[in-house]
């Protein structure tokens, strides 16, 4: 029998995260949502929704560039990581088309989108070429944490507006770019996943005594395990870590890793595996009965529900970064947040300043941006360049036509993300 979650109701709450701001709208708009104030006053919430698109006469009245906005989108469209990249590109195309069908940014400026494969030998060279030789107005993308860490500092050096759309590593704004100006990330960091998992362990799973980890041996997997174990220590969770395994990425054979986990017999496994690695691990672990007495917790794996539904057993714990899971796959969620964040920031700056924003004005407008997206509220706190999102967990439920999350619980974004004046490690060490 699968263990059940018994949330304390204070830190870990039953249900799904609210899609509306957690405070009443008026209070929210007075505070961090100043961007939404501007956007709402100007009536430029969602340009794709129809009727919301502005034209120059609605807002500041300044000249809107007549040439299309040049946007470069970068994601893995081949190789193992295309599990995220391919749907992201499709989502990007769809959203750009919607925006353009409504007249474009501010109802006037259409977007010209070019796609690039992240699967390249030299991501830094590719980024520099796009920024300096091809002069894109905005560069959106990156699935790989390692690639985000590579291009982030280059973007700042070149003063190139860039939005990271999917990578989770907390190193991006904790170490690689400590004083960001032009780089933003519109999804939550791995802190949401790893700290969220530790809080679920502490506040909803009382019977767990031993814990193990299986994570990919690169920036993302290492970062997740580090945060998870630091969170265990920070919250004083009474569990023993009996194994921590890092597997090559990508990896097709987990059999010996599973044998080692079976021998250490943990009650709980924290894993940030994703893509084909996650499918292989689940398949091979299930064949070897690893999950009979061990509850695995996959912090970023809900994409396998759609990719390989036949391989997902019932009753495994899955995490979904942010409130968006009930509204679509990760690729779609990451994309629409990112694209609309860019568009909203431009429109906000235009309506506040009366002129179409340059890179600096756009960056200023992005800070403190908040808006209702199709799948929940997107919140980039004032003073931060990183969106914060709640942590969301549930058991895989294979009973319906599609796999869903059963017995969902969630944790408020403030409890799984550091305050804007602290790095993730500083925050965890201070608890």
């Amino acid at each position: 029998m699968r263990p059940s979650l018994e949330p304390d109701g204070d830190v870990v709450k039953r249900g799904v995260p609210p899609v509306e701001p957690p405070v009443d709208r008026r209070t929210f708009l007075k505070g961090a949502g100043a961007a939404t104030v501007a956007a709402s006053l100007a009536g430029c919430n969602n340009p794709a929704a129809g009727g919301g698109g502005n034209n120059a006469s609605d807002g500041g009245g300044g000249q809107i560039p007549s040439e299309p906005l040049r946007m470069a989108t970068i994601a893995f469209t081949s190789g193992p990581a295309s599990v995220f990249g391919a749907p992201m590109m499709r989502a990007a195309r769809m959203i750009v088309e919607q925006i353009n069908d409504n007249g474009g940014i501010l109802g006037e400026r259409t977007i010209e989108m070019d796609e690039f494969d992240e699967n390249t030998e030299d991501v830094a060279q590719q980024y520099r070429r796009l920024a300096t030789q091809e002069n894109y107005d905005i560069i959106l993308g990156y699935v790989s944490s390692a690639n985000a860490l590579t291009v982030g500092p280059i973007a700042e050096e070149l003063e190139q507006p860039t939005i990271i759309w999917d990578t989770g590593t907390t190193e991006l704004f904790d170490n690689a770019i400590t004083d960001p100006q032009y780089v933003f990330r519109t999804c939550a960091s791995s802190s949401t996943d790893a700290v969220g998992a530790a809080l679920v362990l502490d506040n909803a799973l009382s019977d767990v005594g031993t814990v193990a980890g299986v994570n990919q041996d690169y920036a993302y997997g290492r970062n997740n395990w580090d945060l998870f174990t630091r969170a265990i220590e920070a919250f004083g969770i009474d569990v023993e870590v009996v194994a921590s395994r890092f597997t090559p990425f990508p990896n097709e054979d987990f059999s010996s890793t599973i044998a080692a986990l079976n021998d250490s017999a943990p009650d709980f496994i924290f894993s940030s595996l994703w893509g084909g690695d996650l499918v292989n691990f689940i398949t091979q672990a299930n064949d070897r009965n690893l999950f009979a007495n061990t509850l695995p917790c996959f912090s970023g794996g809900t994409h396998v529900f759609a990719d390989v539904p036949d391989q997902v057993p019932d009753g495994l714990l899955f995490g979904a970064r942010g409130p968006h899971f009930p509204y679509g796959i990760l690729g779609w969620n990451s994309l629409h947040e990112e694209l609309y964040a860019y568009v909203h920031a431009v429109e906000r700056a235009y309506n506040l300043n009366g002129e179409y924003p340059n890179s600096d004005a756009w960056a200023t407008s992005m800070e403190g941006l908040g808006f209702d997206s199709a799948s929940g509220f997107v919140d980039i706190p004032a003073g931060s360049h990183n969106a914060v999102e709640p942590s969301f967990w549930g058991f895989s439920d294979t009973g319906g036509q599609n796999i869903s999350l059963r017995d969902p619980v969630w944790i408020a974004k403030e409890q799984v993300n550091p305050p804007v004046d602290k790095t993730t490690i500083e925050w965890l060490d201070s608890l």
Partner: protein
Amino acid sequence: MVAQVLSQQVPIVLNALFLASVLFLLGTGLSIIYGMLNFLNLAHAAFLILGAYVSATVITEVVSAVGGTVGGGVLLVVLLVGLLVVVPAIVSVVGLTMERTLFKPIYGLEDDYQLLATFGVILMMEDGMKFIWGGQPVSATRPSTLLGGVELFGSTFPLWTLFATGVTAVIAATLYYFFEETRLGKITLAMAENDEIVGVAGIDTRSVHLKVYVIGVGLAGLGGALYLPNASMTTGLSLQFVILAFAVLVIGGLGSLKGAIAAALLIGFVRSFGTYYVPQLALAIVFLLMAAVMLIKPTGLFGDIKA
């Protein structure tokens, strides 16, 4: 105490044998094609991936067509026929088509040109497979599910991997018989020594060449068929298997069946035990083994080419 050791070691040994089986099926094809036909086909590993993708389609279609109307035993038999016969046949046909159109023109070139050209073929095949099956992980484990698991010394182990190991052992024995006892096998070995003299003796060397090539490609396809029910496929895996296939080639020695068997077993055991006990070296350990063999015996364990 003994039970505890067995419980710990037996799963690692069985994992090693399964991995060795897949590597043998992959590496043998590469080895006989290079050793006997003098064609260095870097793209050979992509036929294993192709076999796995085709297997996924075969499994999905068979289950969809008859899964609801026949019992589990019959379904398993149909699936096994599909995986053991149909999939290698399809991969062989694809391989044969590629041989006639892409590979034949480069047979006479130096090894380094063949390496570059066949590396390009890998990329073409990868993109082709992505075009057909998409970039998402492809998985179809029904044959393994139907066979179920077996309890061994307190550990559950999937019967499919034991079945795959058994099938590979039979194939290894058959290949040994083929090369040692059959006329075609002996001609093949003779061609490895000097195909011109074999041709002067009135033997159609091109025909033998094609047969050996088809056997090699079919074995890689079978490797994919036996591998898929245990794992998922995504594009990009060909390059990983290329490296492992060449490790078999280098460690075992060119064109040696015994070498391929020994190398596959060695790599399987080193990697399985290495991953269990020294996970930090999971990737490096195979190459350390390869480097050690090259230092001690540059021609590989059973190779006889002068270094």
